[in-house]
């Protein structure tokens, strides 16, 4: 039996649970586990996978709960209208908060959510029409086609169905083009932007999704409890949600349920036992939770689920996901491709580019050109400004002066995403791969701009045709680069040389006309260098232009058509490798001149 089916089978067990002869108290606990797991699932997506932390999810639960409580309890509207209304309120507030914090560095969002959580808690407790700290009561139960859902057992079914639905949507979303973009968010901004991912947009997206799940949980809570008050939506609860996700395994979708179950079970047991041991004065489960979370992060930062999954994997190694289609899927031939420029036509034209950092001129009036089919090496001693030049070309830094044209269009000052769209692919000096994900997934990230399906289609898996085309495209690039046997290996377990080739395959996915390679041979062994040189020659033969920033003289001398030599930010020499090799000024720069 495969692992995925087993996971869903385990999940199905929870639906048998209420039919067993168990005390009703267990059903109550089960209800809470389900409610909390929905919120924790949102946090897994937001924090564990997307790398954004929120302590304020309880406030979104509160928004969902209060919205439906007010609409159905006070205004007498149908409870089923409370759900979309709550989702709307929470989603809009999340979009607002998200849009003011995503541009700031990572720790501002958690701080903002703490403040946000507190301010909403006080607001719930102060507003007259929300019943101040007493809250609202008399919320009608849910009913479906005349079927009364007020009994805890009935609500149990609904809650776990909702949880199952959220799980399915999140798992689908993660296994798609949008999912790859979300996974890339946690690794910083440079890499995903260079792959064409709009990081700000995706960050807001996952923040809103997490808030929507919290709001759903709040709606269920309000109609289960039939009353709401401010306390369960305070900051402490917000922190506990995050703890649940951390305990279960913060990057793990199934860990959300495990974490919610462990924390809810533990809390109810601790509330029974601790007062008997230490007396009633004190909030000891808080101490235990606090100490537990510190110990967990000290010793098992990954949480409980990876530990369980690891034990299971010894019996049954998990099947790779996603799989590349066996043959070209329908419509693959129709995938948009760039028209290839005529060999020898001007591609890249750098005209007096300059970059100043304060008083330091890192790049001083550099001019050079690249034609289709050219392999050009940009070399120079340490600190010559090669990497800065590279960053100007790839859009990581805006130039302070001069002009850079690509296919006749000005690209200086454009962002990395736009430059990538125009047909410039790049690799990184320090390899930027998602170490845990398979080579196929990493490479498919490069095809981000060649797909168009949005997150909603992805969550419903309505984009399977496009997804198959993208995966096939990625698999083709992997084969082109000679890594077919490593297609499903986690990228982090490859040798450094292979990882660099994975980066090139990823860049090839965007169908570039020009490839920028930043020190691709650094740290490689001889055979790895030979394999890399072979790949670059093959790309040249296919008509690609390549610009290499490189230290390794032997590597560039053999491979390139021309060399551009930089020193102190300006061009020292340009020409055929053998000419540059004997240039007196270049020799002086590298070996030290004779005064």
């Amino acid at each position, binding site marked *: 039996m495969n692992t995925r089916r087993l996971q869903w089978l385990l999940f199905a067990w929870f639906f048998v649970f209420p039919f067993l002869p168990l005390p009703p108290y267990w059903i109550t606990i089960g209800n809470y586990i389900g409610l909390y797991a929905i919120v924790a699932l949102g946090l897994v997506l937001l924090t564990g996978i997307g790398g954004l932390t929120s302590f304020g999810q309880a406030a979104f639960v509160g928004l969902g709960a209060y919205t439906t409580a007010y609409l159905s309890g006070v205004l007498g509207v149908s409870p089923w209208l409370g759900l979309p209304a709550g989702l709307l309120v929470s989603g809009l507030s999340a979009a607002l908060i998200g849009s003011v914090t995503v541009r700031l560095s990572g720790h501002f969002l958690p701080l903002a959510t703490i403040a946000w959580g507190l301010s909403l808690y006080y607001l719930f407790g102060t507003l007259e029409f929300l019943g101040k700290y007493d809250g609202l009561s008399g919320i009608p139960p849910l009913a479906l086609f005349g079927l009364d859902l007020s009994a805890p057992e009935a609500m149990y079914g609904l809650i776990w169905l909702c949880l199952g639905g959220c799980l399915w949507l999140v798992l689908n979303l993660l296994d798609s083009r949008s999912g790859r973009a979300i996974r890339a968010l946690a690794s910083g901004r440079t890499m995903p932007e260079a792959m064409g991912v709009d990081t700000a947009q995706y960050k807001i997206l996952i923040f809103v999704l997490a808030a929507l799940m919290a709001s759903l949980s709040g709606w269920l809570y309000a109609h289960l409890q039939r009353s709401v008050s401010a306390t369960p939506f305070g900051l402490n609860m917000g922190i506990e949600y995050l703890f649940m996700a951390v305990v279960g395994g913060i990057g793990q979708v199934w860990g959300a349920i495990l974490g919610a179950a462990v924390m809810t079970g533990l809390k109810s047991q601790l509330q029974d036992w601790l007062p008997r041991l230490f007396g009633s*004065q004190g909030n000891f489960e808080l101490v235990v939770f606090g100490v537990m979370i510190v110990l967990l992060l000290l010793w098992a930062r990954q949480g409980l689920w990876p530990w369980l999954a690891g034990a299971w994997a010894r019996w049954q190694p998990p099947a790779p996901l996603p799989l590349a289609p066996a043959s070209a899927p329908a419509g693959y031939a129709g995938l948009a491709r760039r028209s290839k420029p005529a060999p020898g036509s001007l591609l890249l034209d750098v005209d007096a580019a300059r970059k100043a950092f304060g008083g330091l001129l890192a790049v001083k009036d550099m001019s050079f050109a690249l034609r289709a089919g050219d392999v050009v090496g940009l070399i120079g001693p340490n600190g010559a400004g090669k990497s800065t030049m590279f960053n100007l070309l790839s859009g990581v830094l805006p130039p302070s002066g001069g002009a850079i044209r690509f296919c006749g269009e000005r690209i200086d000052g454009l962002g990395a995403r736009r430059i990538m769209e125009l047909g410039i692919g790049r690799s990184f000096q320090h390899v930027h791969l998602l170490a845990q994900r398979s080579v196929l997934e990493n490479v498919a990230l490069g095809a981000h701009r060649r797909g168009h399906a949005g997150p909603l289609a992805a969550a419903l898996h309505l984009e399977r045709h496009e997804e198959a085309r993208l995966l096939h495209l990625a698999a083709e690039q992997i084969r082109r680069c000679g890594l077919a046997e490593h297609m499903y290996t986690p990228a982090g377990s490859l040798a450094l040389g292979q990882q660099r080739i994975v980066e090139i395959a990823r860049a090839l996915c965007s169908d570039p006309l020009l490839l920028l390679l930043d020190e691709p041979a650094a740290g490689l062994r001889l055979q790895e260098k030979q394999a890399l040189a072979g790949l670059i020659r093959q790309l040249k033969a296919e008509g690609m232009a390549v610009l290499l920033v490189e230290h390794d003289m032997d590597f560039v001398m053999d491979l390139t058509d021309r060399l551009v030599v930089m020193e102190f930010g300006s061009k020292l020499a340009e020409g055929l490798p053998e000419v540059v090799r004997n240039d007196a000024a270049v020799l002086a720069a590298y070996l030290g001149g004779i005064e």
Partner: protein
Amino acid sequence: MDFGIFAVLAQDGVTNAAVYALLAMALVLVFSVTRIIFLPQGEFIGFGALTLAALQGGQFPRLLWLLIGVGVLCFAVDLLAALRQRRYKPLPRRQLLWSAGENLFYPLLLWALAQSFDWSAVPMLGQILFTLAVTVPLGVMLYRVAFQPLAEASVLVLLIVAVGVHFALIGLGLFIFGPEGSTTQAFTDWSAEFGALLMSGQSLVVIAVAAGLIAALYLFFERTLFGKALRATAVNRRGAQLVGIGTAQAGRMAFALAAALGSLAGILIGPLNTVGYDSGFIVALKGFVAAIVGGLASYPLAAAGALLVGLLESYASFWASAYKEVIVFTLIIPLLAWRSLASVHTDEEGA
């Protein structure tokens, strides 16, 4: 609103702002040196005020039990770390002896001191010093136990640990101090009238002490080698390590300062407010809002933020007292939007 009320509110606002400024400084300091967002700062406010209140009331300062307990834990951590490395190097006897002195004997010494004097008869300055002698080592020990082993972890992991420590301290605080709050004795009963404005000596003391501390911090960071080492660590941890500044040492120092500033903030608000074991958290969070104005990096901007928070809170409590907290904490959203527009984007690789 007439001028009298305006002036009273301003005085209130500035007094509170002085306290927020101290807290904001401590938060900026700890964050820049250790990258820890020090949420447990608030607990030290309660610890400081309640310990001082216990001394003034002639009771045993029960926080000492926590100090003794955490001290034992700290020594155990040091001992275990030493034993684990026994295979590679001999037991660092001197270090262990030093650790036993700091973590086991020092708390016992304080315990003996607490037992052998009638602290309610000692002048207030002595009581305050004794309070600090209890709270400051507690800060250092917390760093040793919870944060030092994770010093290289990401900002977010450290933040979650900080929340864990906050939970543990809040729970223990309730056990140690009970649910009731206390007030401490007034620093002075002097007051003066300037036209419509009644200037309270109490406010003046708070403002003067806070201003003095900020000046002292400035001198510490500008003039002393240790202060400069802390600043160097804040600018570049790796670089500081390479020139021989121990980052663990710097972290301990930052936590000592933060604990001291936190307890002093508690002592300063003690005579004006009833401080309970958990009232510090909200106060410290307002310090956070102030620190965010400076992007958790700039001391002068943090002080300006404190003034903004203090005045806003004071005037909000006049016009819409029920919404005071809502207004102060919602302020963070426009503030962040402003910072978001003002800041040049920096990439946080692997943060």
